[in-house]
């Protein structure tokens, strides 16, 4: 295992983020590897300069910021999820699909309408039972 491959473990070691097994393995490596020891020491030196981040902002800044956030909070309504964020696009697409489907269905029904209407008319006028008579009359006329 080259020194380069120990790098991520070295970096994690700085912050004490290694597992016990990794810590043991790294300790063994460091005993035998001077360049990695030097690297670890140099990182420690550099990071001691970084210190911890503390800012010198006045307390009034945080109070004003908090007040500003609270003043901007939108009211949360129970149905708000439907018209906001990730639900908006799927809802619109679903609506479009349903409307298109309904339109196509209506169109096909309208195309079938004349035949259905004729059948209804024949049944209503009870003419089906007289169909044989009508056909016979037609044949007579033809002769």
């Amino acid at each position, binding site marked *: 295992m080259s020194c380069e491959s120990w790098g991520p473990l070295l970096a994690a070691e700085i912050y004490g983020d290694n597992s016990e097994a990794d810590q043991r393995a790294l300790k063994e490596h460091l005993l035998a590897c001077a360049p990695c020891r030097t690297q670890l020491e140099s990182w420690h030196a550099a*990071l001691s*300069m*970084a210190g911890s981040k*503390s800012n*010198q902002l006045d307390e009034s800044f945080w109070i004003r910021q908090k007040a500003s956030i609270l003043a*901007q909070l939108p009211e949360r309504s129970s149905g708000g999820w439907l018209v906001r964020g990730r639900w908006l696009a799927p809802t619109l697409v679903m609506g479009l699909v349903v409307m298109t489907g309904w339109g196509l269905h209506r169109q096909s029904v309208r195309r079938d309408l004349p035949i259905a209407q004729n059948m209804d008319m024949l049944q209503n006028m009870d003419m089906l039972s007289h169909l044989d008579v009508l056909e016979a009359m037609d044949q007579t006329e033809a002769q």
Partner: protein
Amino acid sequence: MEPVEEQRLIERARKGEADAFGPIITAYQRKVFNFIMGMTHDPTIADELTQEVFLKAWTALPRFRGESQFQTWLFQIALNATRSWGRWKKIGLARFVSLSGPTEAEVSDKTEYQGPQVADRDPGADPARQTESAALQAQLSRAIEQLPPREKEVFHLRHYEDLSLKEIAQLMGIAEGSVKAHLFHALEKMRKFLGGPSDVL
């Protein structure tokens, strides 16, 4: 804030109680602001984005299922906000992105941000030593600044915000091993930038 108390407040805020959101803001606004400040180096932008992060958190809170810690989830929003700002900045439109620009009064109301400070800086210490320390501090800031975005994010989250590698992996959506690798590259680049151990010490 105690985890149980935080959980209770989050639950109330999820239901739309704005009163419960106040203590949550107090608990996290400094951390979020510091992280964004570290990434943007602009107190006005950091303030705007911090507000934007909390407003987004409020809106998205009903969808927070508690699969990760609240802090991790919040930092995920902060990370996305800074990345989004970074993308707009690249094309020169960052100023038009934020929700609302601060008023003149708000800007003047601010105490000037001094940047990351060495924690053990002693006001009564030797002035020459303080000047040297300030110079090293500026050098370190430049070293952090020259890092690629992902490495800078990992370094800030781990070093300054004290998030665990696991939390960073979770919020960045990458493997823990990748976080370690980013951290390693960041530290190594900073060391090289600073000129190695002999120059640092």
